[in-house]
C-alpha cells in the first residue's frame, strides 16, 4: 500500500488521431481533495473515464486505489464511488429504493444495507421522505443524497463530476461540508467544478488545457505563481491559452 490514491504517468487517449488526453501525469494523496479543472473540451471527461475504469487508455500508466487501470478495472469500479450533475439517481425510484439499488450493486449485505439506510436517512433528515420518488426532491437534496449514495459502500476514492452545478448557494456549501466529512473518514475526493470559489476548497488543483495538464499546485501557490487575486483569474489566464476549438 502506498499513500497515493491515484498515480498517473503519461496517460494518453487518442480518438482517430485526435489526442483528447495527451500524456498527463499526476498523483493524488490519500484523503486529499483534488480539483480537476479545465475548459469544456480540454479532456477532463475522457481522463476521468479512464481513471474510473470505463475507458481503455491509448498509452501510459495509471493505478487507482492501488489497481492497474488496464488489468484490474473491475476492482477499480468496486473501490470507487462516482456521481455527476447530469446523472446520479433514478428519478422514478424512491429514496429508499435508490439506496438499496446502489448498495446492492456494490454487493453490500442486506442487513448492513438496512442499518446503514436508517443512519443515512437520519443524517440527511430525510426519514419522512424515504418513500417519495427521487424525481420529486429539490435538486439540492437530490445532490446531497446522490453523494451519500456514492460513498455508501465506503469507497477509497469518490469521483465527483460537476456535483454542484445549478445548486443554490446554501446547499452548495452544505455539499462541500459533506465532502470535508468524507475526507475526514479517509476518502479521497476527485472533483470537477465550474465554480471557481470551489477550487479554493481543494487541497490541490490541476488545470487542463488542450489535453495536457498546464498547472498543478495548491490554490495559494497557483495564485502567487500567476500573480492573481482569485482562482477565477488563474483559470482565465491558463484556459485562454487553449488553441483547440473543443
Amino acid at each position: 500500500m502506498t499513500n497515493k490514491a491515484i498515480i498517473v504517468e503519461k496517460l494518453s487517449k487518442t480518438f482517430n488521431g485526435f489526442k483528447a488526453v495527451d500524456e498527463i501525469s499526476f498523483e493524488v494523496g490519500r484523503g486529499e481533495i483534488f480539483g480537476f479543472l479545465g475548459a469544456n473540451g480540454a479532456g477532463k471527461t475522457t481522463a476521468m473515464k479512464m481513471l474510473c475504469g470505463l475507458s481503455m487508455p491509448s498509452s501510459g500508466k495509471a493505478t487507482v486505489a492501488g489497481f492497474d487501470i488496464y488489468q484490474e478495472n473491475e476492482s477499480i469500479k468496486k473501490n470507487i464511488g462516482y456521481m455527476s450533475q447530469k446523472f446520479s439517481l433514478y428519478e422514478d425510484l424512491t429514496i429508499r429504493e435508490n439506496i438499496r439499488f446502489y448498495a446492492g450493486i456494490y454487493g453490500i449485505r442486506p442487513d448492513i444495507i438496512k442499518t446503514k439506510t436508517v443512519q443515512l436517512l437520519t443524517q440527511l433528515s430525510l426519514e419522512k421522505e424515504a418513500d417519495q420518488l427521487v424525481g420529486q426532491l429539490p435538486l439540492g437534496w437530490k445532490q446531497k443524497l446522490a453523494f451519500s449514495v456514492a460513498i455508501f459502500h465506503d469507497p477509497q476514492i469518490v469521483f465527483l463530476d460537476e456535483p454542484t452545478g445549478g445548486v443554490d448557494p446554501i446547499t452548495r456549501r452544505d455539499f462541500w461540508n459533506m465532502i470535508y466529512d468524507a475526507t475526514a473518514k479517509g476518502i479521497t475526493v476527485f472533483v470537477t467544478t465550474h465554480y471557481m470559489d470551489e477550487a479554493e476548497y481543494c487541497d490541490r488543483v490541476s488545470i487542463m488545457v488542450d489535453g495536457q495538464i498546464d498547472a498543478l499546485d495548491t490554490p495559494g501557490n497557483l495564485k502567487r505563481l500567476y500573480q492573481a487575486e482569485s482562482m477565477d483569474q488563474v483559470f482565465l489566464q491558463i484556459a485562454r491559452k487553449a488553441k483547440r476549438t473543443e
Partner: protein
Amino acid sequence: MEKYHSEQASIVVSSVSKSYTSGKTVVKALDNISFEVEKGSLFGLIGPDGAGKTTLFRILTSLLLFDKGKALVDGFDVISGYKEIRKRIGYMPGRFSLYADLTVQENLNFFASIFETTIDENYDLIKGIYAQIEPFKNRRAGKLSGGMKQKLALSCALIHRPSVLFLDEPTTGVDAVSRKEFWDMLKGLKNEGITILVSTPYMDEANLCDKVALIQSGSILNIDTPHNITHTFSKTIYRIKGRDMQALLLQARQWDFAEQVYPFGEYHHAVIRQQSTELHFPEGVEASRIHPGIEDVFIDLMRNHDQ
C-alpha cells in the same frame, strides 16, 4: 389582435402563479410573480435549479398556461396573442433542442424558413456568433461540442431578428472562459436593441445584467439593479481568514457577534449581528470589512425566506 401600449416595458408579468401536481403533492412552481423588463435591456433571472425559471420562460414564450395573473410580451397578451408573440420572440431553451441529425447549416436554414426569412437577410445580426461555427457548417448538430451547440442554438434563436430574446440557462455547465465570451455576445445583441431575458444559477453573472430578479422556490426575493441590490443591503460583512480554514469556520460560528459564517472561496464571510458594536477577532485571524456581493445577499434572503 388587441395590442397593449406600453412605452417602456417589453415584458410585463403581473401576479402570475402556476402550480403542478406531482403525485399527491401540489408544487407551487411560481407564486404570485410580478416584474417588468424595460425595452432594450438585459434582465437576469438569478436562482438555482428548481426556482421556477424555466416555468416562467415557458409561460412567456406561450408554451405553457398558468393558473392566475397576466403576462404581456412586446405588447401582446401571452394567451390571446400567442401567434403574434411567437413571430416576435427568440427562445433558447435550457436543453439543446435543435435537430441533431441535421447539419449546422441545415438547422439554421430550417429556422430561417419557418420564420419566412433567409440566412442572408439577417446575417449581420448573427455574424459575430455564427462565423465561429461556420467552418463546421456541414457537421451534424449532434456531433458538435457543447460550446458550438450553444452558439448554433443562439444563431437559430436570432435568425428572424426577434424583438425579445429568451435565454434559459445558456451558461450552465459552461467553463469560465466560454461564459465570459457568451456574455460579451449578449452585450452585442443588446446594443442591437434586442430585449433579453436570461436566467442563470451563477450569482456572479448578475453583475452583467441591467436589472435582476433573485428567484427561489417560485418567489422573487428581490428585484433591482445589481448595484442597488448590494448597496442597499443593510448588514455588515467581514471576510476572515486563518491558518486552518475548517477549524476557523467552526470556531467563528460560535462568535456571539456573528449571525452567519459561511465559506466563500479563499475566505469565510461573517455576517455581523446588527447590534454588535465591538468586534473582537481572535489573534491570528485576518479580518476585513467588505462590500457584500450578490451571493451574500442571496444567501441572506434565502435564509429569511425559509424562516
